[in-house]
């Protein structure tokens, strides 16, 4: 065949590149998960060995107030995790549905409306959202979860719409031209090609929620906000640090592991 001449010798390339991944695959996975693993380790050490560490360091620390926190850290961790996980996953489900529906209507006006509403919505401080939900649901973690839920919808909806919008015109046309129905295109083209951008939105929402959930303590929702808020009240910086460091670890772990999961250079 005339044409096979100018394609070089691909057989050789393929053999070389096929052999390499097999050897280094495990090592590369290990390397990728090393950083998130360290964050998780730091988190667990902080949760379970905080008191031990504190008493070891006590000679060098300023004298602390008599009032101490009664809830153990691992319970706060669970409360925090629960609020974030429930609110974020419900928000992701809602916004995927909402974003897809907006995309499927193919109405440019609706798209730009939703995009600008979500941009404005994100400028509302999360503390205000929580405060405003109190009259609705009273004190407790439900209020906090409602606020976090509303807050997380915004970035995910926006990225769903934008992600599906930015698919190359020729790819879309190919889908139609090959005889895919609108729904088949949505399933086989829109979703997989928008997935990386949607996941970026989910990552943003998750990180925002992990930190915003600390404000929940002001409405009695529990979580790592409890030591932070009480630490501020009694002027105890150790307590503030006790609550904020695990939040930091949690947020970094969530961010990094979602990044690792979505990077496809395995």
């Amino acid at each position, binding site marked *: 065949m*005339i*044409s096979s001449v100018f394609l070089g010798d691909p057989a050789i390339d393929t053999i070389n590149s096929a052999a390499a991944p097999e050897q280094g695959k495990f090592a590369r996975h290990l390397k990728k998960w090393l950083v998130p693993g360290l964050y998780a380790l730091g988190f667990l050490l902080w949760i379970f060995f905080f008191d031990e560490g504190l008493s070891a360091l006590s000679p060098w620390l300023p004298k602390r107030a008599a009032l101490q926190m009664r809830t153990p850290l691992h319970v706060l961790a669970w409360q925090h995790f629960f609020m974030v996980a429930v609110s974020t996953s419900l928000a992701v489900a809602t916004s995927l549905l909402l974003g897809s529906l907006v995309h499927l209507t193919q109405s440019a006006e609706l798209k730009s409306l939703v995009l600008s509403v979500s941009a404005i919505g994100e400028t509302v401080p999360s503390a205000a959202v929580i405060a405003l939900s109190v009259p609705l649901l009273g004190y407790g973690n439900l209020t906090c979860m409602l606020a976090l839920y509303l807050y997380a919808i915004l970035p995910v909806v926006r990225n769903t719409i934008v992600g599906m919008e930015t698919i190359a015109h*020729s790819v879309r046309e190919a889908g139609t031209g090959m*005889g895919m129905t609108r729904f088949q295109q949505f399933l086989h083209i829109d979703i997989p090609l928008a997935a990386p951008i949607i996941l970026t939105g989910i990552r943003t929402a998750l990180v925002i929620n992990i930190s915003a959930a600390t404000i929940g303590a002001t409405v009695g929702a529990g979580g790592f906000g409890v030591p932070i808020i009480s630490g501020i009240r009694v002027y105890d910086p150790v307590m503030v640090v006790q609550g904020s460091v695990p939040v930091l670890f949690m947020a970094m772990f969530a961010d990094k592991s979602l990044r690792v999961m979505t990077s496809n250079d395995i």
Partner: protein
Amino acid sequence: MIRLTQVFKAYGAQEALKGVDLEVPEGECAVLIGPSGCGKSTLLKTINRMVGIDSGRIEVNEQDIAGYQPELLRRQIGYCIQGVGLFPHFTVQDNIAVVPRLLKWPESQIEVRVKALMEMSGLPDAYRFKKPKELSGGEAQRVGVCRALAADPPVLLMDEPFGAVDPLTRERLQLAFMEIQRALKKTVVFVTHDVEEAILLADRVVVMNQGQILDAGAPGKFAGEVEEPFVKSFLGSEYPLKLLRRYSAKDIGLALLPAWRGAMPESGRRLLRMDSSLKEILSEMMRHGLQEVPVEVEVDRYVRVSYEDLAGHLKEVSKL
């Protein structure tokens, strides 16, 4: 066979197609050519209903396409789009298999088909599991052609399929496509703005401007007198010279030509053979300032091809 009768299409006040009549017989390749915005792409897209028409009638294999559900119609028509448009998240194999999968072919049959198509278009088997971004421009275009041919459709629509590649790759793609078309004999509608591409691939050249077909005929036809002023200026005054590339030495009836006598012209020149194009033969004459050159018809047998033979051939095809 494709037949369009009085097809009209307007985008608002902008008339894209103004009463187009076109017939492409079974197994022929019709090349639509014209300047940008002349409606050639629009015309192509009306055939698989990517563009709906305002009035008129389009038949594919004696069936009015208005009677089909658009998706089902498109699965029966091969489509090579401008800019290739491979699905970036699919492997080469999955890209080619799109239409067969939509048609619910069994997987084993799909794999056989993909392998056969890739071999035919000169893609190595190892490429099946590559992603489009790992391919060069020319390779991606080949995959695009394979994808259009995957379900063995009787009709093929090609919208500037060899657009965004360098001239050398483009020529190779054209030759590969000619070979495929010679083997498969599809009914093809091909859109281009490149006159040389049209000359090489067309059984029938269809010149369009401003939503109308101005003239149509075999490529040779336009080497003679052309009346229509737009067609004349669009195809250009060098058209006969470009047309020479379409024909090779074996098209001019070498058996009737006298054998080459006397000394061969000086060494170091290119050896002309049966499959050299007439353009190469003319170039060789000009390079050496000769009126006649030897062409090898079989080992150590040369015939004398003269300038008159070339001009005579063009005259002959322009009358067909």
